[in-house]
């Protein structure tokens, strides 16, 4: 006689199946080596970010709003910001986000 599974047991089995499917999908590699490298790097950091104490990845991004940023050495308004330019000067707070 087949024992009926409880709702909890059914839910557990479903979760395990989904997890297995996701894990199997993760194992598939892209044919594009450049894209696959980005995926590997993203997965390596997935959910962890850059650990405290590690060097912060440098970037040079275009500035949308300058507000109280000091002008550049030539006196012109700053159009882009390089993170490493603040090294040995002051700490920097990074707030990542989007409108949605």
């Amino acid at each position, binding site marked *: 006689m087949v024992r009926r599974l409880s709702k909890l047991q059914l839910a557990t089995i479903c979760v395990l199946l989904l997890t297995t499917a996701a894990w199997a999908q993760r194992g598939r590699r892209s044919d594009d080596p450049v894209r696959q490298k980005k995926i590997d790097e993203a997965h390596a950091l997935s959910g962890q970010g850059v650990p*405290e104490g590690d*060097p912060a990845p440098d970037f040079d991004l*275009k500035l949308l709003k300058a507000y109280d940023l000091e002008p550049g050495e030539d006196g012109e308004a700053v159009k882009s910001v390089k993170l490493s330019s603040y090294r040995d000067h002051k*700490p920097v707070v990074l707030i990542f986000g989007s409108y*949605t």
Partner: protein
Amino acid sequence: MVYIKEAHPEDGWAIPVKGKLYKDPTTFLERQEIAETCTKDLDIRIPTLIDELDDGVADAYDAMPDRLYIVGADGAVAFRGERGPFGFKPGLMETRLREVLELPADGRVLPVDDGKTRKRRRGRNRKTRKRGGDDS
């Protein structure tokens, strides 16, 4: 602020903002326009950078959908917040920032010593009033 990839675009897990849906930008200019709308609507008054369309910086910091970091003056990460929305905790970051800036933890803001504050003199040069009311 570093403006990154939309967390809830129209063609993804869509969530409207003020009743309007936004498509995930396909050009840098489109991302810039949404960032412009964002900073105006939310009255954001801090320098705002825009991540490139390849999301390189967002990926490097694993920043999606939102995240807080403090980078120390030595170039190392001094604070790494958890990923948002539930891990986005400005209060935690503020506490750590106070430590980094060596500010009091109780929220006091120390006056800036600009070298112009006159210090009160003590000792023999200090003028004192004679007791007894007699000025002789």
